[in-house]
């Protein structure tokens, strides 16, 4: 008999539905495990009373005969999502002790689907970072090697899922913040098409890029969560797309091509490999794992085709202009006036602004606010912001050309495995450059995911990135699911957390 924490979403849901275990029991077990592993730094907030009350409500629904895929399953939320029942900090001192009067739409939708909220997960401050070492509440450790980063900014989510502290978590992805931590911790994560999940209740970093998504142990579990997360929210988010939710889990079994056979379920699927993703910039151990995974895809019947995404490199400057520009404006509301941190002593209004913001924001956040304010300034706007927007459009066009030759695009998620904590702290540009493979899909608003594809040097996990065209989440999840049916990389757990 396996321990409760070892069960993934699908297995837990089956046990809950069969009433072999109660939601309260599972919740209690996972709360204990979270507390026992507090050294990972994954959780920022736990509230036993709140979680158990939700679990009891789920048990009552189960007892009444209700069955739903997530009913009674504990999950946890990245602390970027505002919640009524837990504090929300966005990983920042600025929001220490902040309590939202409403739940984010994604949180409310998952609660309505019956999921129990186990707590709030650490992240880089205001989702700015790729190592979860920019949190005001301390770093998150990678459960595969506690001296390494778990990726970021959804590092609390990736670490918690990888360490089996929770079967699934929400994340947000602006420039790779779901895919890269999933890759660094050997879990599965998907960022859907921009606008598929409501942004209402997500503390905004870069509005035109921010997108919520699930992080779990398998494509199947991601599909279960994503089905509950997507859908229009037109009264609250003007960028939410008017497109009904889909049942991605039900779609997992469907053939992806008319040529599919039982032995070769991916026959007819053309996977594009962008030449720019396989260059010298990518570490050999990562390339080796990715190539091995691609060979597996070939065995499953997929065809590999060479494609070009010629402006891949330009995605770095474009992103690091557009995202900070939007952030500089989005974070102006944290001024010490209405909520959030206010300096104790100040001479006048201007002094209050300066002190409150200097004390409340961490270094990386301040760096991006300054960068953003600079590129939007009079005289620089055309040269930076407008130029970056032009590049962004060209990058999106490149993808459309590429999708004329293939159905999916595959490549590495990141140029290396998880680095050592502190390794890139003094060199922000080095950390920015490591976003090169996730930024193009972000800038284009395309769905992308990370699928565990093996291990690199030092036994650290490597993720395979899959990128689909707009609204091709079902195809992405299907391609990942078939791969996971044929491989077991996604079932591997860090040895101390198995």
């Amino acid at each position, binding site marked *: 008999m396996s321990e409760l924490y070892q069960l993934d979403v699908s297995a837990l849901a089956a046990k809950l539905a069969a009433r072999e275990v109660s939601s309260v029991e599972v919740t209690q077990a996972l709360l204990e495990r979270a507390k026992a592993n507090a050294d990972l730094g994954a959780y920022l907030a736990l509230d036993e009373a709140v979680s158990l009350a939700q679990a009891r409500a789920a048990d009552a629904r189960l007892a009444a005969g209700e069955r739903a895929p997530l009913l009674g399953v504990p999950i946890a939320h990245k602390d970027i999502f505002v919640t009524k029942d837990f504090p*929300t900090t966005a990983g920042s001192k600025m929001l220490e002790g902040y309590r939202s009067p409403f739940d984010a739409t994604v949180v409310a939708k998952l609660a309505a689907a019956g999921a129990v909220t186990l707590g709030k997960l650490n992240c880089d401050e205001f989702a700015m970072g790729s190592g979860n070492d920019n949190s005001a509440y301390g770093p998150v450790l990678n459960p595969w090697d506690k001296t390494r980063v778990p990726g970021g900014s959804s590092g609390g989510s990736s670490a918690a899922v990888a360490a089996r502290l929770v079967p699934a978590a929400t994340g947000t992805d602006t420039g790779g913040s779901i895919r890269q931590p999933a890759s660094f911790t050997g879990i599965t994560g998907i960022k859907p098409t921009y606008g598929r999940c409501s942004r209402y209740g997500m503390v905004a970093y870069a509005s035109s890029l921010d997108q919520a998504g699930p992080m779990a142990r398998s494509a199947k579990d991601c599909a279960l969560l994503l089905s509950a997360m997507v859908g229009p929210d037109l009264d609250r*988010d003007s960028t939410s797309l008017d497109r009904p939710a889909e049942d991605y889990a039900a779609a997992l079994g469907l053939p992806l091509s008319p040529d599919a056979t039982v032995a070769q379920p991916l026959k007819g699927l053309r996977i594009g490999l962008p030449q720019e993703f396989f260059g010298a910039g990518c570490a050999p151990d990562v390339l080796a794992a990715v190539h091995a995974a691609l060979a597996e895809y070939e065995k499953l019947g997929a065809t590999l085709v060479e494609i070009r995404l010629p402006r891949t490199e330009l995605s770095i400057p474009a992103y690091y202009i557009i995202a900070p520009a939007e952030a500089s404006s989005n974070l102006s509301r944290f001024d010490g006036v209405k909520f959030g941190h206010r300096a104790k002593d100040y001479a006048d209004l201007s002094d209050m602004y300066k002190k409150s913001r200097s004390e409340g924001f961490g270094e990386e956040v301040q760096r991006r606010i300054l960068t953003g304010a600079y590129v939007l300034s009079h005289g620089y706007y055309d040269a930076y912001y407008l130029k970056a927007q032009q590049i962004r459009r060209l990058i999106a066009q490149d993808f459309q050309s590429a999708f004329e030759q293939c159905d999916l695009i595959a490549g590495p998620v990141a140029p290396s495995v998880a680095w050592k904590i502190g390794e890139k702290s003094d060199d922000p540009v080095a950390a920015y450059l490591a976003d090169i493979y996730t930024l193009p899909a972000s800038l284009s608003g395309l769905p992308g995911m990370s699928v565990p594809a093996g291990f690199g040097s030092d036994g650290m996990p490597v993720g395979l990135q899959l990128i689909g065209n707009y609204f091709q989440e079902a195809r992405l999840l299907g391609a990942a699911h078939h791969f996971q049916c044929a491989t077991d990389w996604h079932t591997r757990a860090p040895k101390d957390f198995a």
Partner: protein
Amino acid sequence: MSKKQASLLVQGYEVVIGFETHAQLSTHSKIFSRASVAFGAEPNTQACAVDLALPGTLPVMNKGAVERAIQFGLAVGSHVAERSIFARKNYFYPDLPKGYQISQFEIPVVQGGEVSFFLGDEKKSVRLVRAHLEEDAGKSLHEDFHGLSGIDLNRAGTPLLEIVTEPDIRSSAEAVAYAKELHKIVTWIGICDGNMQEGSFRCDANVSVRKPGAPLGTRREIKNLNSFKFMQQAIDFEVRWQIDRIEDGYEIEQATVLFDPDTGETRAMRTKEDAADYRYFPDPDLPPLLIEREWVERVRAEMPELPRVQAERFVADYGLPEYDATTLTQSPAMGAYFEQAAKLSGQAKLVSNWIMGEISRRLNAGELDIAASPVSAAQLAALVARIADNTISNNAGKQLMDALWAGEAIAGEPQAQVDALIESKGLKQMNDSGALEAIVDEVLAANEKNVAEYRAGKEKAFNALVGQVMKASKGKANPGQVNEVLKARLG
């Protein structure tokens, strides 16, 4: 330079004025949230999570505000943009909760257009650059907080249409006439309540002066002019101040100024050196505002007749003088009142005289709007009809109006009401020539002195005799008929 232009110069300088007007749109809820915009609520009771800029909140466009912008565009002959863009204007201020104002910058919803009006007898036109949608900020309250400032965010997010003109205005009088016409348009089409005390219609005037033919001078912007009276005073003061500065050898420095009604002076709030860089950029939370032609056409089909068009029609259809037509088209209610009474009575000019005279006087005295007039258009038509057919004199009509105004009419058809009052008050004009001739003969006999003076060539004596006849008839004689009979007798 024409004579007219020359006459407008102030101490040899030409005055150049452009306007920016913030019209608060008459929606029930805010431009990007569902909170109410009603005026006068307790501080911060009408500010929801979106208005407070709580983390995670996002703006959602209020279609009612867009619809009102379309109405305005159609009313002033503008291009209503198929696609316009919301932008963020970034600056820190405690009553600006997000740290930026959502406005429109590069591509506004309403482009071009013009506002035409009469300045005296002269028809003027002021070209519009644009009108754009934006949200209002909250209010900072600096009193009653013992050295601290209070913030009231009820007004934050209130929808505004900012209407910007070309620098086409050449005098303070023209500025006021423009502002009044714009006020009339926005209230007429119902997109703004026009309440200037409550800040629903606020004007900023960009004022500069130059020698005729010279390039535009440096402008100073007078902010928040919230009455037509102050507008004229402020501009007049500002013009004199600028001319004095230039004459004293100084250059005008670009500045934002405020008018102090107590001193009658303008004073600078901030100069160009501390002008902020607003770092405008398209708001990524709001997709481009797309307005399909069908929407514009639907709004067009529902637009009321505009004041200028109605005035022109009153001239053409009812033969009214331009002055009357303009006066009667101050509001849709006024125009409708006139038109109903004119149609019922067939006496347009007489109706016009009565509305502009007796009715307006009474409305003003009671501070009533014509929509609340105690005398209906049908009653006025019935009254006017009886003057026109000589049943009553004009003077008797005024007594009748008093009775109607006081609500003395008993239930019934308006004409029956009016006729009953004429009867009960004995207001009927004496149209029986036999009776009149008898009165005339009596008066002539009793006033031989006047008769003699008239015959000696003193015209004044005739008027005295008319007066005596009117008096003897207790005012009921028809003055025209009295003239005729007297002349015949004295002939």
